[in-house]
């Protein structure tokens, strides 16, 4: 993993690949999905993230919208990375991702392709693009936790 961070060509190609061929890039109209619309007031991005969370597991993540390279690729990578994970696993990955973006200590091994954004802070105004989809997912998870607690 550490090697990949020293390979800008590789990181760039990861971002390009997810921008040109975003994964899980279509919304569905099913009751089992919860969704979060994110429209930043300080940038153009306008995306919607959907998640199907069954008991403790994230069974599916989908997204769509008008967005730049950074937000499209970061959301696409997030959707692949967190799909199939338990809530606890997903939360651990998210904590690491946000720590990386904030310049704090993080475990690169759990981030896989999301490592491509470790230098996004060079363009300070784009941090929100790299986190918009992740923040949407975080809110969906938190809402699902709250619901679970209420029912429990």
């Amino acid at each position, binding site marked *: 993993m550490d090697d990949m961070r020293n390979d800008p060509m590789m990181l*760039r190609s990861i971002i*390009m690949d997810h921008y040109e061929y975003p994964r899980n890039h279509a919304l569905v109209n099913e009751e089992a999905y919860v969704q979060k619309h994110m429209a930043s007031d300080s940038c*153009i991005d306008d995306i919607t993230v959907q998640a199907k969370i069954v008991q403790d597991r994230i069974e599916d993540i989908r997204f769509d919208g008008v967005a*730049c*390279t*950074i937000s499209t690729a970061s959301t696409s990578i997030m959707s692949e990375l967190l799909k199939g994970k338990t809530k606890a696993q997903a939360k651990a990955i998210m904590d690491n991702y946000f720590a990386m973006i904030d310049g704090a200590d993080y475990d690169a091994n759990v981030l896989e392709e999301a490592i491509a954004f470790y230098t996004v802070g060079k363009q300070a*105004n784009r941090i929100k693009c790299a986190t918009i989809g992740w923040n949407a997912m975080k809110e969906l998870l938190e809402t699902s936790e709250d619901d679970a607690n209420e029912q429990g």
Partner: protein
Amino acid sequence: MRNIYEIRQDFPMLQNKQMQGHDLIYFDNSATTLKPYSVLDAIAYYYTNITSNAHRSDYDLAFAVDQAYENARLKIAELIHANKNEIVFTSGASEGLNLIAYGYGLRYLKEDDVILVSEAEHASCVLPWMRVCEKTGARLKYIPLNEEGKLTIEAFRSIMDANVKVVALAQISNVLGYEVPMKEICEFAHAYGAIVVVDGAQSVPHLPIDVKDMDCDFLTFSAHKMCGPTGIGAIYGKYEWLENIDAWMLGGGSNARFDACGHILMKKPPAKFESGTQNIEGVLGFGAAVDYLQDLGMHQLHAYEQKLRHYIVSHMKRMENIRLYNEDAQSGIITFNVKDVFAQDAASYFNAHGIAVRSGQHCAKLLSEQLKTAATVRASLYFYNTRAEADEFLKVCANADMHTCLDIYF
């Protein structure tokens, strides 16, 4: 115009300022402009030498502030060929447009009256009228733009009728930078008995303006887009209209008398609209900014800007990787995209080269029908930009593609 490099010495932000390790190239002048020392000095002068409230007191300091304040009003009036008592200070063009919409609209408009705006209007020129429509039952109608995104006099004539009571338009659109034929529009609108409200935020800083010749009823603008401070702007209004529209804010300074029975006698315009302690430092800074522009000469400034724009555009239009949307606009606004690159990604790429440009999304109708894109990059020039900056910008443009726009992160 004075020598460009001598002019640049007047601006602290143009002295060795760096962005991302490059000399700053400030091409976001439609958003706001840089300030010369003379404006900063005027603001500091108020606080260091003549601090006191305006229009309130009998001592010498306060008299000096009154004079400085009213003198700034005179300078602004002279810039646009208005009378001094036709200039009302506001916080900026947006407040001005709101004041006119509510002050005129809520008093005079009724059901089925029509307010005409264009499809490319700035939110500040449309949203206040939407609110007025909700309250009065009046309707908002949009003048269609042609395939280039221009508002033509023909399109305006074809939609104009006797129900139209207000025409509210930007003289220069902030998206594509085209100038609207405002004099003809005023003449035609007046023949139907409609008033014309001009958003001058993008025109007053860049063009010689004569409100008497244009014959508009209202014109609004902001100081910060013309080398002045933020938080201050002005309305020009024909005096009879200023007398006959309502102030939307009441309080100290705007009333001559009031009593416990609720009788209020308002002061005459412009004081009627200037309630509460005003933005005195802003007004004095605004006056200094107008002095600065007048010294350069609005005709000369405009000609310089046009020449620089023409130079940039003539090169950009030959670049295979650039899509240009407003080749022939007569303003400093250059609207474009790097092919296959989302506007915001391109704007970050320019930032990485020390160049400040704006990426922006446009109102749904305009983008789908005219621009056929979700967002564009806007470079906007002012008189302190140079040919050397233009060359650097062009070099960066020529190298822009999806790869270079992503390389900035690594």
